[in-house]
């Protein structure tokens, strides 16, 4: 598998960095960025072509490119509705030709998309949503409650993960639909605005509903893509705070020496570097696997998400240790990175969730192999 960036990929990465340096604010100022500034940054990203996503057999951006963009957004702590918008499109793209019309239309639009996924008190096992699609007088209606919908205030469209006749389904609704009650919610990172939403019989046209086996496929791919984009952003944020900590260690003097000359700190920073770099290797590998249609892409994404969720946090903790007391002041940007990493570490499954899943799958695989070895046919072929 090709893991080196192509020239075009390097160009995308550099261009997004340049764009964000121009359009977006410094880490110190992210919480005070005006709504106009956020919109302007978003518009610049759209105009750059961030959503020219590859569909069946066409040219365009894939998971690797979108993860590169997410990494830059994380590094700059940008506050834009990118994650949902990119994850939904990445999830839908391979099915482009067989999707219901209104859902397929998302692929040719640049609208910001929100994802209504989590429910209060439920974990990241999302295939049994309490939110349901029920048959009303004029067709299907959404009933239920969702929490932690990122950037709902900016989203034009909302993709709701629900159940239809007990099976997973996806429904699409305008973010301002009648019957939808929204409320601003607290978030660990205030630059990742979150809302709750109550759906009181919100009507959806059948062209806006995806059910059946395809819904399960798209939902799984949505979790894979979302995990990777969230991890990519965390890697970007970790890279930036690590850079700041290295620079600080090279300037700050104590005991008559530059503190970066103390081995205790040099080793903390070296370990953090390894964690951050290998985290990116994991994300990039899994993103390439997703683009290649590799059957192990979901597993690779779980590995990347589990690893980065722990690793990026570790990097932020290490950097804060190097900064010392100054990083404990609200004015210092360190906590902005810590908060962003914390939120991305949770989204689409935290480390514990992915580790449980990976362990279960490994055990199932091995149990099957053991069972195969004890089958009568094989026992004859390989006598003990």
């Amino acid at each position, binding site marked *: *598998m090709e893991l080196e960036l192509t020239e075009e990929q390097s160009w995308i990465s550099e261009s997004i960095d340049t764009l964000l340096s121009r359009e977006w604010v410094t880490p110190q100022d992210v919480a005070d960025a005006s709504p106009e500034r956020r919109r302007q940054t978003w518009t610049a990203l759209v105009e750059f072509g961030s959503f020219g996503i590859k569909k069946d057999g066409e040219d365009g951006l894939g998971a690797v490119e979108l993860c590169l963009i997410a990494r830059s957004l994380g590094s700059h702590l940008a506050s834009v509705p990118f994650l949902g918008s990119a994850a939904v499109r990445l999830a839908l793209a391979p099915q482009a030709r067989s999707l219901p019309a209104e859902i397929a239309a998302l692929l040719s639009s640049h609208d910001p998309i929100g994802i209504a996924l989590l429910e209060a008190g439920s974990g990241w096992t999302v295939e049994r949503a309490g939110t349901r699609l029920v048959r009303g007088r004029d067709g299907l209606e959404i009933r239920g409650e969702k929490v932690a919908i990122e950037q709902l205030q900016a989203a034009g469209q909302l993709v709701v993960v629900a159940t239809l006749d007990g099976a997973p389904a996806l429904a699409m609704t305008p973010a301002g639909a009648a019957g939808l009650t929204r409320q601003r919610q607290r978030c660990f990172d205030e630059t990742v605005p979150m809302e709750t939403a109550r759906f009181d019989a919100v009507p959806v046209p059948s062209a806006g509903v995806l059910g059946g086996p395809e819904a399960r496929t798209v939902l799984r791919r949505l979790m894979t893509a979302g995990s990777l984009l969230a991890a990519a952003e965390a890697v970007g944020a970790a890279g930036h705070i690590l850079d700041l900590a290295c620079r600080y260690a090279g300037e700050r003097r104590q005991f008559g020496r530059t503190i970066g000359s103390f081995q205790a700190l040099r080793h903390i*920073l*070296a370990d953090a570097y390894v964690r951050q770099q*290998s985290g990116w290797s994991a994300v*990039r590998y899994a993103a390439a696997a997703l683009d290649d249609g590799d059957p192990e892409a979901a597993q690779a994404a779980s590995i990347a998400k*589990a*690893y980065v969720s722990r690793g990026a946090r570790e990097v932020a903790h290490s950097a804060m240790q190097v900064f010392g007391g100054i990083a404990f002041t609200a004015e210092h940007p360190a906590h902005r990175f810590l908060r962003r990493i914390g939120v991305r570490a949770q989204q689409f499954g935290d480390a514990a969730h992915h580790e449980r899943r990976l*362990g279960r799958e*490994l*055990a199932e695989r091995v149990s099957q192999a053991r069972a195969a070895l004890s089958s009568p046919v094989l026992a004859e072929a390989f006598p003990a």
Partner: protein
Amino acid sequence: MAPEERRLREEVRAFLAENAPSPPDLPRSLDARIEALRGWQASCYRAGYVGRAWPREFGGGGRAPVEQIVVDQELAAAGAPEFVNVVGLDVLGPSLLRFGTEQQRQRHIPPILDAREIWCQGFSEPEAGSDLASLRTRAVERDGRFVLTGQKTWVSWGQFARWCGVLARTEDPGHGQPRHRGISMLIVDMNSPGVDVRPMTQITGHAEFCELFFDDVLVPEQNLLSNRGDGWKIAMYTLGHERGTAALPRQVKLRTWLDRLAFTLGDRALDGRALLDDPGAQVSLAQAMIGIEVLRYHAQRTVGEFLAGGAVGPDSSSVKLLMAEAEQRLAATAVELLGPAMEQADPAKQDEDAFWEETYLYSRAASVYGGTRQIQRNIIADRVLTLPQE
């Protein structure tokens, strides 16, 4: 993976299914075992699987470096015995190819490839471990020869080696100069008078490595590798090379060990059910797997740069750190999950518990050999992060 790599992989698999000895079937006595392993490496060489990317003029295969990686990964996946001339293949062979004279390469490369001559490396000393530049072994030039005196340690397979790549001081660095000045690399014939080899027993119970004593050993001038004073440069090249390319086959081996552990846990019971079905055990296995897989992703990325013609840079230290971490985590996981059974293992039985006892003990070396974990962190701090020097 490119189609030709896939074809090669199939070819190697077929060869291994036909030819690879199973490690438990190898002779138990060390001498007979080494002879069998020489034969194994020679047959792999004849099949084109050793030195596949080395130049054809010296007996190599002249193929792309990625092909050797494909081969090594298949050997590891099949659990085939490792090549007995590992030091020649991974450490000193690449240095001879890079720094040796035409005559040195003609003389030494072919017998490295088919294991006719085993190599060892004389780098560390009792008083020069991580602080390699403080080595005391001296080589004084006299009548067109070097006279070598000193002591080396941790010399893997020294008792079977015909040649040793020795780092020795040929010049004083000079006052105020860095101590790695004045160190040279000599090719020493282990049959020379004055060479004394004493095997040491390791914590695993094996005697894979030795102490070497040089007492006025005469080394012909033409056995100097590159120029006087180039020893440090060569040593850094060889260590980086080892770190950069060994990780992928090692990773494959760790992955097979993980599956092996999971398989064994299917036989062990906890509270009336298989340990493999215990959620806590599953999470431990998953954490070990994550370490092993991330090692692969990261090594592929850094080796990719090497295969594209770049040097093995300081990022090989990241790979080395991840490799030690993955190996030690896997072994510690086995210890925790197998419990007392492992500690009561009888090595003579060669069962799973004995395997994990040895693997656990051996894993403790992973963060020491080839440059300790702390040295790798120093390399990253200096050369990647360019932090102020200590």
